[in-house]
């Protein structure tokens, strides 16, 4: 931010005045249950947990003289250690966002025209219930699908399961972390999990492959990354872009996009041929090592050089660096890893490299997480579905262990293996999350019912028949969070202030809808607190204590093999599978094999996208506090390429992709921080929803340009870094 923009980077708009007035009327504090700490008179503090991303950090909100003032980390919370990230700190802007949804809406014009009539909750839920009953009668309850993201979706899932559909999915699998969990399952028999079981705080050598911690702001990960940097850990960063993490690295490897697997194979070649691996660990826990080792013979650093652009000396030096620090070497599995369509195998290569270094189950590598035992509420059993899930017919992608959003979308378009006629979408903006928005819209046009439940009017809400306005996390209870982490704990979300308009919490919406569907028996509790108190008490804990503290800690379990964590691997062999017979049997490579990425059209740049620390997906751009930190994205372009194109920083351009799709206008960031063969932008901008008045038209959307995707044959993930763009100056 330069000096000029700092002094007056936004004029105070009329909308802000409205917002302030609105907050003044609405922010009546709810009964405080926590003891005030370190505050001044008139300040009450209420513990809860954050929802600006899915990390669920424990937080303490302060209400001063009845007004929501600020929110800070809960010192008791093992995830955030008393410190929220910028999104969490700015989370109170979600409450006062003047663009948020205010009342239930029913569509009055064509889908996508964003024209609705405000209705009462009764009218909206009646409308939905009538159509859901019609769908069930005509096509069976399996013809309803739920797309849901985050803990808030728990109760809608419950209602939809009671209704009788098995079809529910989240973009977090096929569009995000799925390949890595599949790659690690195939190797170690277990997922990396969320929060990741990465022992970054204790590592001596951290390898980040495309993972841009610090910009990707998962709080615990970033805190531990800073700890590792502060301890002088050796950092190796592999990224086509000189990320913030790269600026902390001992080795920065500016890899050619799409060739990471070649580098991983060459690293393993060096570690195996130079016998630098943890031989005892491999002998004790490994299966098929000899066949694995034999398959690496041709993957020399000299072979990898022309593929990756990384010179053989650097490949050898970094491989030896990893080996020198093992087993406290952590090759980070990343999180958003749907890049090229071979992502599960690349993730498996990362798992195998960690296996060679003996880091799984070891301090500074991967620890064993645990959670507290909090029994589920004793609901009646769900009805047995007549038909199985349709997102992955005939197990075409045999290693998909979660449902595929894009599989449900395909089935909705084709009507096969059976029709899908209704979508309920909770807190996920499918038009920004799934590749190829035209396909999503085509699927939506097949529906008899599209319901969107959200806090803000997303692009997806713009296509809905019914839009239900949800209370923000600061205004509602949600389900409990018995987190699976290095320190088990139980977290509670509870309201801090009232909702400003006619918004309702998810639990209320799901319960009322169930009652209107004749499924009231599935909600034997009258109020959410009755449900919460029942579960907490059943766990042998005190609900009043949880309300007061926000967090109750559990008993820490052994984290590493040498502390007594079980060295058990839920694979077919019961060992770490260097060679995978189950992959071989299913017709896939038992050891990852490299295929060069397809090149783009001459003169084009590969489109890469990622995160900024102050925004979550496409959900935060209308939050005035967070948009004040970053109000639009830029397209990063190497200086040399920019000069060649006659472009400079702050010039506006539009990006045109290989299929002719033209983006919104976006500013150029000409920089020495990216390779000349690719461009980069932060995901989540370029909103086209007219309801998002503040964010509308600011920056460009990568999702709009991701018309192509490469499907991972193992697990159905959609590799999205396979699109190419040219830049057109905006005159």
């Amino acid at each position, binding site marked *: 931010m330069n000096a000029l923009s700092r002094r007056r980077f936004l004029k105070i708009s009329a909308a802000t005045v409205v917002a302030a007035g609105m907050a003044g009327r609405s922010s009546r504090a709810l009964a405080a249950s926590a003891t005030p700490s370190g505050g001044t008179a008139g300040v009450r503090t209420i513990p809860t947990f954050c929802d600006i991303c899915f990390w669920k950090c424990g937080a303490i909100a302060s209400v001063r003289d009845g007004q929501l003032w600020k929110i800070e980390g809960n010192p008791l919370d093992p995830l955030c250690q008393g410190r929220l*990230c*910028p999104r969490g700190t700015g989370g109170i802007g979600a409450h006062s966002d003047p663009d948020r949804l205010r009342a239930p809406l029913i569509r009055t014009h064509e889908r996508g025209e964003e024209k609705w009539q405000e209705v009462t909750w009764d009218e909206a839920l009646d409308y939905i219930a009538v159509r859901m009953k019609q769908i069930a009668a005509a096509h069976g309850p399996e013809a309803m699908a739920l797309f849901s993201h985050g803990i808030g979706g728990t109760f809608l899932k419950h209602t939809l399961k009671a209704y009788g559909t098995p079809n529910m999915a989240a973009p977090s699998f096929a569009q995000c972390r799925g390949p890595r969990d599949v790659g690690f399952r195939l190797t170690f028999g277990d997922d990396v999990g969320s929060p990741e079981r990465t022992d970054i705080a204790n590592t001596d050598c951290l390898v980040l492959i495309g993972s841009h*911690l610090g910009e990707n702001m998962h709080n615990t990960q*970033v805190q531990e990354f800073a700890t590792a940097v502060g301890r002088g850990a050796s950092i190796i960063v592999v990224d086509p872009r000189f990320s913030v993490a790269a600026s902390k690295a001992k080795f920065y490897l500016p890899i050619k996009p799409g060739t990471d697997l070649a580098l991983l194979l060459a690293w393993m070649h060096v570690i195996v041929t130079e016998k630098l691996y943890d031989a005892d660990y491999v002998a004790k826990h490994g299966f098929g090592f000899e066949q694995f080792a034999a398959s690496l013979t041709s993957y020399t650093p000299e072979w990898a050089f022309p593929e990756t652009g990384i010179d053989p000396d650097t490949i050898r030096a970094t491989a030896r660096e990893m080996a020198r620090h093992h087993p406290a070497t952590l090759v980070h599995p990343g999180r958003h890893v749907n890049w090229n369509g071979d992502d599960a195998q690349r993730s498996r290569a990362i798992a195998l490299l960690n296996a060679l270094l003996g880091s799984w189950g070891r301090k500074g590598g991967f620890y064993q997480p645990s959670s507290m035992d909090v029994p589920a509420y004793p609901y009646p059993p769900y009805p047995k579905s007549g038909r199985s899930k349709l997102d992955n017919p005939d197990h075409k992608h045999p290693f998909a262990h979660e449902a595929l959003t894009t599989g449900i979308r395909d089935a909705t378009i084709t009507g096969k293996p059976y029709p899908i006629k209704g979508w309920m979408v909770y807190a996920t903006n499918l038009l920004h999350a799934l590749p190829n928005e035209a396909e999503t819209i085509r699927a939506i046009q097949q529906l008899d019912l599209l319901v969107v439940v959200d806090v803000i009017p997303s692009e997806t809400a713009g296509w809905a028949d019914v839009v239900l306005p949800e209370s923000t996390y600061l205004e509602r209870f949600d389900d409990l969070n018995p987190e699976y982490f290095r320190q088990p704990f139980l977290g509670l979300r509870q309201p801090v202030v009232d909702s400003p308009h006619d918004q309702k919490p998810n639990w209320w919406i799901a319960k009322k809808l169930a009652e209107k569907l004749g499924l009231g028996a599935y909600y034997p509790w009258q109020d959410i607190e009755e449900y919460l108190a029942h579960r907490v008490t059943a766990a042998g804990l005190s609900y009043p204590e949880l309300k007061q503290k926000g967090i109750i800690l559990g008993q820490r379990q052994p984290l590493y093999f040498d502390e007594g964590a079980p060295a058990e691997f839920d694979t077919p062999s019961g060992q770490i599978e260097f060679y995978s017979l189950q992959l071989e049997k299913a017709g896939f490579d038992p050891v990852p094999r490299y295929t060069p990425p397809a090149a783009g059209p001459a003169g084009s740049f590969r489109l890469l996208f990622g995160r900024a620390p102050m925004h979550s997906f496409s959900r935060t751009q209308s939050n005035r506090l967070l948009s004040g930190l*970053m109000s639009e994205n830029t397209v990063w372009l190497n200086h040399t390429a920019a000069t060649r194109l006659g472009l400079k920083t702050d010039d506006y351009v539009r990006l045109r992709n290989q299929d002719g799709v033209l983006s919104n206008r976006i500013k150029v960031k000409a920089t*020495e921080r990216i390779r000349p063969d690719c461009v980069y932008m932060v995901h989540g901008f370029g909103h086209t929803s007219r309801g998002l008045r503040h964010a509308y038209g600011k920056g460009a959307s990568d999702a709009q340009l991701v018309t192509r995707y490469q499907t991972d044959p193992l697990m159905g993930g959609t590799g999205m870094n396979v699109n190419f763009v040219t830049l057109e100056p905006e005159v």
Partner: protein
Amino acid sequence: MSRYIMVIDTKRCVGCMDCVVACKTENHVPEGFTRDWITETVHGRFPTTNLEIRTERCNHCANPPCVHCCPTGASHVHARGGVVLVTPEKCIGCKACLAACPYDARFVHPKGYADKCTFCIHRVENGLDPACVSVCPTRCMHFGDADDPQSGVSRLLAARPHHPLLPEAGTQPRIYYLT
């Protein structure tokens, strides 16, 4: 006596701007203005690039030009810790201090007075760190008394190479960046 300073570890900082948003909520900084900000300095040619990220704000200078030039005494040095503050009631909004500040740390609040970082003196007087320091997820920011050789900030300065911003301006800034 005490002499408050800030010591910021650029090796840990990731430029996430949590400090910026925490200041805004803590101090009710109006939309469109900010008392602290992030600066990124890039050197070198790709891929041998260098990046330094700094969180910046008023340097609470020991020789503060904003105080020297203030015609009303609104800008002043607080008795505690040498913190440079503005008394809104005395400020006439003449902007002399904005022009005098080499760090461009001040702005005119919509209510008409010069505004800037206070080192969260209201928190410090209650034994708390400034808001930006207390929220920082990377723990790159440290606040304390430079006159106390045992303070965390004194020990950091003794142990690590560091630099202030624009020392040539002669203002004796009191924010130090560890490199």
